[in-house]
Every structure is written in structure tokens, then in C-alpha cells.
């Protein structure tokens, strides 16, 4: 039987057309007119379905691999198992109501997502944000970056075979959850950033535990570097695996650490400095190799830079208000709502109508989320609901990279490469 005629051998039971078309598409990828039966007398080719419920695919990612022995000949990805249509939901909500949905996009770094939406809405509606709120947002974003990279580190090293490492990174992640609990009142889906500022100020307890975290965390990083940097098993598993060449990286649309590991210092914090990123000093780590090991070094360095940024933010943070004082732009504080009639009316208006950008205005704002460039395009029709929100998510673009770099790898490296690209399906599937 010919391996190329996959459709005759499988008998899908659900979403039949969909299943058939993905096998057909796998068949068609770099089409050749070879006769497989003669070429493959031992019948070493097979089609391997990986996912969507595979524990190492980091969510509901499905890979359809065509193998020849242990080598992957070609790959197709099937995504959309977590598609909830958040862009459609956004069109039927006010901007502030949509905020909790952004938490659930990239659920490993909710804070960055909140800030990305806020910044885009603030850009289109020309909302001024007080300095203190901007610094608080930066601290939140960088903590989210560390938290996201910690999960990547733990699971990627676990994919490469070291289980106990996962527990150590999760111990540190737990500390970040505690910090988020102190900052925002929630551990996981924080929704702390608000249009026009943030929900509440940093308490002294929160500042204290952030300070404690940033003094202790560099030592942990150092220990992990000591364990992994020259670890032969780790390097053998990661070096020259999943290589994305520098000249292909831009064309295929890589972003974030994947792009930086291939040699391009593209970072939205430098290109379009939002918040106060132009007032802090930090480096954008890059590597030239483009393999999984390079991505490891880039992310490890980024965590170090994040600590530096948080340190500078804590030093530079001025005292002052944490939300815009303009009642048309932001929610009034709870004190005003409870003790003044006007505050209550404003609160009601914000909830009912929300913020209304000018009719016909369009804007795009991108932030550097832990996974890469996270951009919000908003088109307004003058009402409190956006006419169109398009979310440009980094995981979606990096998964497209994954589909291309897996060809020619060993099947055992698949999970390591997925780990190195670090996709979050909540974000890729929207």
C-alpha cells in the first residue's frame, strides 16, 4: 500500500471533511512524483498523529507528521482546538469588559496581555496615564515575562528529560503568583491594568515581596545556568535542533525570542518604547545559531534583564495618582463612587457606555510580550464597542515557524522543538 495515499487508510469518525483535508494537505506539501512503494520496500514510512491531547504539546496542538524511520519528512499543524472567537466577542463588549478575556489569551503572562489592550485603547482614545501607573505596569509585565519564561524553562527541560527541574522553576513561579496576589488580588488571571491606569496602587507589602524576589532570584538563575549551561545531556538534546536560519527567520515571520535567537534584535520595547521603557536601561539579548540552545540562552538572559528593569522601576517610581483623573477616560476611584453622587454617575457611565474613541479612528499598538510581538489593532465606529479588534498574537506566528523547522528533524526531538518555540494555544487559537 502506498503511504502517500493516506486518505484511503484512515477512517475519521468526526469532522470528516476536516480530517480528510488535513491528510490531503500533508500529502501535498512539497509534492513529489516519486513512487513510494519502490522507494520504500521496508515500509519505513508512517503517519503519526501527535495531539491534540498529547501532554508534551503544551496545550491542544495537533501535529500530523510523516515519518521515514525516525526522521520527520514533513509536518502539518492543526490548530483551532481552543478557538473561542475572542475577536468576535470583543466586538460585542465595551473595551473594559473585554479586559478579562485578554487574561485568557496568553494565560501564562496575563499581565502583558492586559497592558497590550490598555495601551492600544489609550492610544486610540488619547488617554493620558500617570507615571506611577506606567511603572507599576512595567513591573507587572516584567514579572509576567519571568513567570512565562519559568514555565517554558521547566517544561522544556522536562521535555529534554530532567523532571526535577520543573519543580524548581515552579517554586519560583509560585512566588510570582504570590506577588501578583499582593499586587492585583488575583494569582493567575490578574486583570490589574485598567484603561487610564491600574486598578490599585502597590501596597508596601507588595513592594517588599517584589524587592525580596528580585534580590533572591538572580542566585536561582545562576544555579540553573550552572546546572544547564555545560550539561552534556542538555546540550546534546538542544544543539542544532530545530534550527531556524537567520536568512529565513524574517521571511517566515518569527517573533520574540525565536527571532532573537536567529540573530535579529527586534524588540518592541526598543522599536516603539511604550510606558517608560525609554527611561530604563536594558539589553536585548540575541544569538546567531537559531537552534533550541540559542533560544534557551536568549530567554535566560531576558529573565536577567527583566530583573534589572524591575529594579530600575522600583527606584524610579514616583509618588502620585495611579489612574487618569478624567472621568471620561477612566473609572473613578472607589472612594469617589461610594461617597459622591458624581463619582457614582461616572462609574455607571463607564460601565454602561465605556470609553468612546472618535468615529473612524484606527490604531495599532504592539507590546513585547514574553512570546514576542503582541499587537492590538482597533478600529472604532465612535461607540463604546470596537468595530474591529484584531489581535496579532506571537504564538500563532511562531507555530507557523514550527511547521517549517520540524521538517528533517528526528521524531524524538519534536517535543523539545515545541518546547523551545514555546507556543501557548490560548493565544494562537484566539
Amino acid at each position, binding site marked *: 500500500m502506498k503511504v502517500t495515499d493516506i486518505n484511503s487508510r484512515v477512517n475519521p469518525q468526526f469532522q470528516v471533511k476536516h480530517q480528510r483535508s488535513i491528510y490531503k494537505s500533508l500529502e501535498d506539501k512539497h509534492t513529489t512524483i516519486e513512487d513510494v512503494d519502490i522507494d520504500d520496500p521496508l515500509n519505513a514510512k508512517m503517519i503519526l498523529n501527535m495531539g491534540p491531547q498529547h501532554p508534551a504539546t503544551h496545550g491542544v496542538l495537533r501535529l500530523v507528521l510523516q515519518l521515514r524511520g525516525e526522521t520527520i519528512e514533513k509536518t502539518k499543524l492543526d490548530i483551532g482546538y481552543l478557538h473561542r472567537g475572542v475577536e468576535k466577542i470583543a466586538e460585542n463588549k465595551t473595551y473594559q469588559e473585554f479586559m478579562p478575556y485578554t487574561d485568557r489569551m496568553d494565560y501564562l503572562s496575563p499581565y502583558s496581555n492586559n497592558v497590550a489592550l490598555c495601551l492600544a485603547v489609550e492610544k486610540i482614545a488619547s488617554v493620558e496615564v500617570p507615571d506611577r501607573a506606567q511603572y507599576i505596569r512595567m513591573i507587572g509585565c516584567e514579572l509576567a515575562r519571568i513567570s512565562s519564561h519559568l514555565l517554558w524553562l521547566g517544561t522544556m527541560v522536562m521535555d529534554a528529560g530532567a523532571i526535577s527541574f520543573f519543580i524548581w522553576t515552579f517554586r519560583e513561579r509560585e512566588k510570582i503568583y504570590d506577588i501578583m496576589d499582593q499586587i492585583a488580588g488575583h494569582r493567575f488571571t490578574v486583570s490589574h491594568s485598567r484603561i487610564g491606569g491600574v486598578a490599585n496602587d502597590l501596597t508596601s507589602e507588595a513592594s517588599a515581596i517584589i524587592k525580596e524576589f528580585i534580590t533572591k532570584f538572580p542566585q536561582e538563575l545562576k544555579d540553573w545556568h550552572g546546572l544547564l549551561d555545560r550539561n552534556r545531556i542538555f546540550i546534546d538534546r538542544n544543539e542544532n535542533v530545530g534550527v531556524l536560519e537567520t536568512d529565513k527567520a524574517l*521571511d517566515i*515571520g518569527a517573533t520574540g525570542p525565536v527571532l532573537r535567537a536567529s540573530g535579529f534584535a*527586534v524588540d518592541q520595547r526598543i*522599536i516603539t518604547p511604550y510606558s517608560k521603557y525609554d527611561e530604563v536601561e536594558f539589553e536585548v539579548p540575541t544569538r546567531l545559531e537559531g537552534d533550541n540552545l540559542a533560544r534557551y540562552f536568549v530567554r535566560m538572559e531576558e529573565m536577567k534583564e527583566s530583573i534589572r528593569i524591575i529594579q530600575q522601576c522600583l527606584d524610579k517610581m514616583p509618588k502620585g495618582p495611579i489612574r487618569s483623573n478624567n472621568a471620561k477616560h477612566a473609572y473613578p476611584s472607589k472612594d469617589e463612587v461610594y461617597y459622591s453622587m458624581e463619582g457614582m454617575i461616572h462609574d455607571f457611565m463607564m460601565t454602561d457606555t465605556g470609553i468612546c474613541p472618535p468615529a473612524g479612528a*484606527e490604531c495599532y499598538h504592539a507590546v513585547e510580550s514574553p512570546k514576542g510581538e503582541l499587537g492590538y489593532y482597533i478600529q472604532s465606529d465612535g461607540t463604546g464597542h470596537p468595530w474591529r479588534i484584531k489581535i496579532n498574537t506571537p504564538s500563532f*506566528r511562531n507555530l*507557523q515557524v514550527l511547521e517549517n523547522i520540524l521538517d528533517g528533524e528526528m521524531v524524538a526531538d519534536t517535543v523539545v522543538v515545541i518546547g523551545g518555540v514555546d507556543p501557548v494555544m490560548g493565544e494562537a487559537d484566539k
Partner: protein
Amino acid sequence: MSLELNDTLQTLVDGLTETFSDKLIEVYQSSGDTFVRVEADSILEISKYLKEKQHFVFLCDVFGNDRYTSDERFEVVYNLMNLRTQTRVFIKVRVEEENPTLESVSSVWKAAGWNEREVYDMFGVRFENHPDLRRIFMPEDFEYFPMRKEFPLLGIPGSIELPNTTPDTE
């Protein structure tokens, strides 16, 4: 409205005006972002020109937009970046409601592949010469284009049953 263009964008607009004078429809700015609208039939040539002559090598995103108007209903926006000067520009084209088709730019930027699949999946705009134009989020069996404005939030034929809206008692 006067435009505030930096050097890269000025070169871009001048270059487009010179080379594609009959294809350029309008250039406008909104909230600090620059949008260039061109004729839909020339998108492939303009993409090649932008990549090769103007160094817009990085395609960040391609997305659709339903304008919900009787003529030229759908809009497809290309989000491009010039990494040399770190400038962003948005190229827009509009297509008709009936059988919307566009030339695929995935031969210029490979990154467009999945993005165009998303536009097709959500709006039903077909891309010619696309290497693999399938739906990306929804299954192939799905018959609708969910981001079109007339698509309801609830009550899709063939979908799960809606909750009962009348009280059980009575």
C-alpha cells in the same frame, strides 16, 4: 488633513506615487499610524516593490475587516515593517462582497501563509495561488465565516442546542 511622515514613509509614498500612480488610492494617518490604500488587483506587484525597493521585509500581520457596506465590503490589511528604520506601515485593499478574491502575497513573504488562511477562515476572502488555502481555526466542515458582521453570537444552525429561555414551571 496634513500628513506627518518620517523619511522612510515619505520615500515610500513618493516611490508609490511614482511607480504606481494609478494604483494608489489614498494615504492617511490615524492615531499616529500610517495607512496606504491601493487597488486590490495590484497588491502582488506592490508587495514585491515594497519588499525589494523599500525594504519592508517583515510582514507582521494580515487581517480582514468587514466594513458592512454595499460596495467593496471586505478590507484586507497588511501590517508591514521596515526593520532598517523600524517604521511600520499598513497597506489596505478592498474587495467586493460577491466572491471576494485577492492575489496571495505568500510568494513574497512566506509569513503570509497562515495569516491569509485566517482571513479566509474568518471572512471568506479567497487567496489565489496560495500554497495551502484551508480553514485554520474552524473545521473544514463549517459552512460559515464567523467574523462577518451578520454571523450571530448564538444560534448557529447545526450548532449545540440553545438553552431554554422559558421557565420550566408554568
